[in-house]
């Protein structure tokens, strides 16, 4: 609970940011607050009430989310052009902090009502942030589309919750009677509602538009945070349910998701759309982990989420840097990047290779864990589908690796601002850290 309180206070400070006297202290205070928020878990760990359970899952997923937002806050802080001013966009930062509080709650619920509230606390700032680049029409459209579809998804989730309640008379999971059809239907609808957030087919149609429309710094943060939060929530959900209720549907969704995501990603010319579809494909891989839930599932989904977040943040940071150097976010904008800035190219290559799952980057271990899970589940057909998907993924990711080394549109070198440099260096350090000490993340569960 401490972490939520600290984040709320930080958010309020951010809302008042324009009027505060010591503006220079804002960033250090925020980052310190994030660190304290994570330490806060240790003081009340483990806490189980009828509403919350701050357990190991919420601590680990919450830690990843705090790191994601921490890095993004640094880059957003250095990016003052949201409102045509040089001031840091304090309101944007405040909304990001509030959304992170929602994310932390999404992995700390034990009462379905709390899950619903958490999803909304995460979503409402996101609807606004996606549209925060008000001078771009795409940004507004994305915001509107995300809002409407998100509201429908909330309704579906709520209807599922109501059906579950009708079938079982309880808001706590794990109570569903195996023969209660109404309860089972409710569970499926609730899973559908959470899958919407995770961008799983057939609830994926918002993903490419929102990724493309949102300001790039926000896109990277959102892609990472929402995926980790949604899969954390799913982990908590399906862990307490019987496999027969959702097994087949989730398997179908996983296969559809990764295949559709990969196939559509191949054809994209816009970087952000390509990464959006590849993000859909990653959601599909992560869903495989729940077939069925075993003791390694949590480790796998946690490690996959963390490595995906790291890769995604790196990739979108580079895209943002490219956009600031005056190029639009198309695949062609990457051309000649190697000549323009080697450090950025290094971050780009490492992140993309990690997303592609090339050893020894963290994405490889993540994919290996998923594959081991599928092998253990004895679905040989599923194994082959997954394999082919990995191959397709590697194909289009390598296209992205190719371009920085070819002749470019622009020859001038890319210059980074101080905060961007800090962000890039942190991301590089984290990536290498995950290569050398994956044990640190793998051994927590």
């Amino acid at each position, binding site marked *: 609970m401490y972490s939520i309180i600290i984040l709320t206070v930080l958010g309020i400070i951010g809302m008042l940011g324009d009027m505060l006297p010591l503006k220079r202290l804002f960033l250090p205070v925020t980052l310190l607050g994030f660190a304290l928020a994570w330490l806060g878990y240790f003081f009340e760990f483990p806490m189980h009430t009828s509403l*919350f359970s701050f357990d190991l899952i919420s601590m680990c997923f919450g830690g990843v989310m705090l790191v994601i937002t921490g890095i993004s806050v640094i880059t957003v802080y250095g990016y003052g052009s949201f409102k045509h001013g040089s001031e840091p966009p304090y309101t944007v930062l405040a909304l990001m902090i509030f959304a992170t509080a929602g994310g932390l709650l999404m992995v700390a619920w034990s009462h379905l009502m709390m899950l619903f509230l958490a999803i909304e606390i995460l979503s*409402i700032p996101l609807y*606004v942030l996606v549209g925060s680049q008000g001078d771009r029409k795409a940004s507004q459209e994305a915001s509107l589309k995300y809002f409407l579809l998100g509201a429908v998804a909330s309704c579906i989730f709520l209807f599922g919750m109501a059906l579950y309640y009708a079938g079982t008379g309880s808001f706590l999971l794990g109570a569903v009677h195996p*023969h209660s*059809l109404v309860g089972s239907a409710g569970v499926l609808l609730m899973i559908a509602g959470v899958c919407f957030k995770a961008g799983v087919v057939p609830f994926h149609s918002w993903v490419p538009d929102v990724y493309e429309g949102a300001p790039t710094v926000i896109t990277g943060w959102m892609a990472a945070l929402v995926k980790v939060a949604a899969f954390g929530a799913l982990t908590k959900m399906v862990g307490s349910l019987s496999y027969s209720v959702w097994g087949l549907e989730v398997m179908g969704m996983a296969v559809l998701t990764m295949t559709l995501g990969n196939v559509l990603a191949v054809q994209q010319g816009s970087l952000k759309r390509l990464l959006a579809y590849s993000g859909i494909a990653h959601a599909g891989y992560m869903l495989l982990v729940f077939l069925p839930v075993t003791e390694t599932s949590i480790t796998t989904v946690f490690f996959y989420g963390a490595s995906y977040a790291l890769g995604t943040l790196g990739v979108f940071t580079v895209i943002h840097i490219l956009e600031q150097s005056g190029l639009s976010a198309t695949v062609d904008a990457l051309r000649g990047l190697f000549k323009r800035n080697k450090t950025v190219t290094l971050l780009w290559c490492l992140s993309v290779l990690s997303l592609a799952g090339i050893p020894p980057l963290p994405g490889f271990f993540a994919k290996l864990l998923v594959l081991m899970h599928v092998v253990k589940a004895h679905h040989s057909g599923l194994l082959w589908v997954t394999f082919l998907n990995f191959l397709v993924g590697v194909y289009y990711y390598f296209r992205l690796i190719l371009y920085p080394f070819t002749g470019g549109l622009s020859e001038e070198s890319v210059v980074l601002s101080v905060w961007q440099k800090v962000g890039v260096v942190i991301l590089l350090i984290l990536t290498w850290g995950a290569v050398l000490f994956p044990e640190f993340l793998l051994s927590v569960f």
Partner: protein
Amino acid sequence: MVTLFLVLSLLTVLSALCVVFTRNLIYSVLSLIVCFFAIAGHYVLLKASFLAVIQVIVYAGAIMVLFLFMLMLMNLNKKAEASKPFSLKVVAVGVCLLVLVALVSIVFLSAPRVCFAPLAPVSGSVSALGPLLFNEYAIPFELTSILFLSAVAGVVMIGSYGKKAKKQ
């Protein structure tokens, strides 16, 4: 009682259909208000008096007035909304009917497990709900403040955007 239920249900469904299938937005809003009142009636029947009051105040009172206000502001009532292609409509209605059939069949298939023996009377009065809300559910109640804070911050940010852009 059954008659009352049936009448209210009929009113709910008819006004809901009216919301979806009228072209004129004003009529649409008005029938939605009727629908909400009918649902409030259901709450009264179910002895959830507090929620019935809230439903009238918040939904029919605040939210729908906000809707009407926006409609007037945008002057949308003048031109009737263009409709989607007929084929798309048929598909949409078909999909929804399918969902409905699925839901209803689920309800009937598991009927003996859903229908419970009636228990002692319940009363959703303020005196019953209040302690629950502020004791057991105090934390989520406070958490909604985060929701509202972020909603307010967001609304202010988006709303003030046009002004700042004009200034520069």
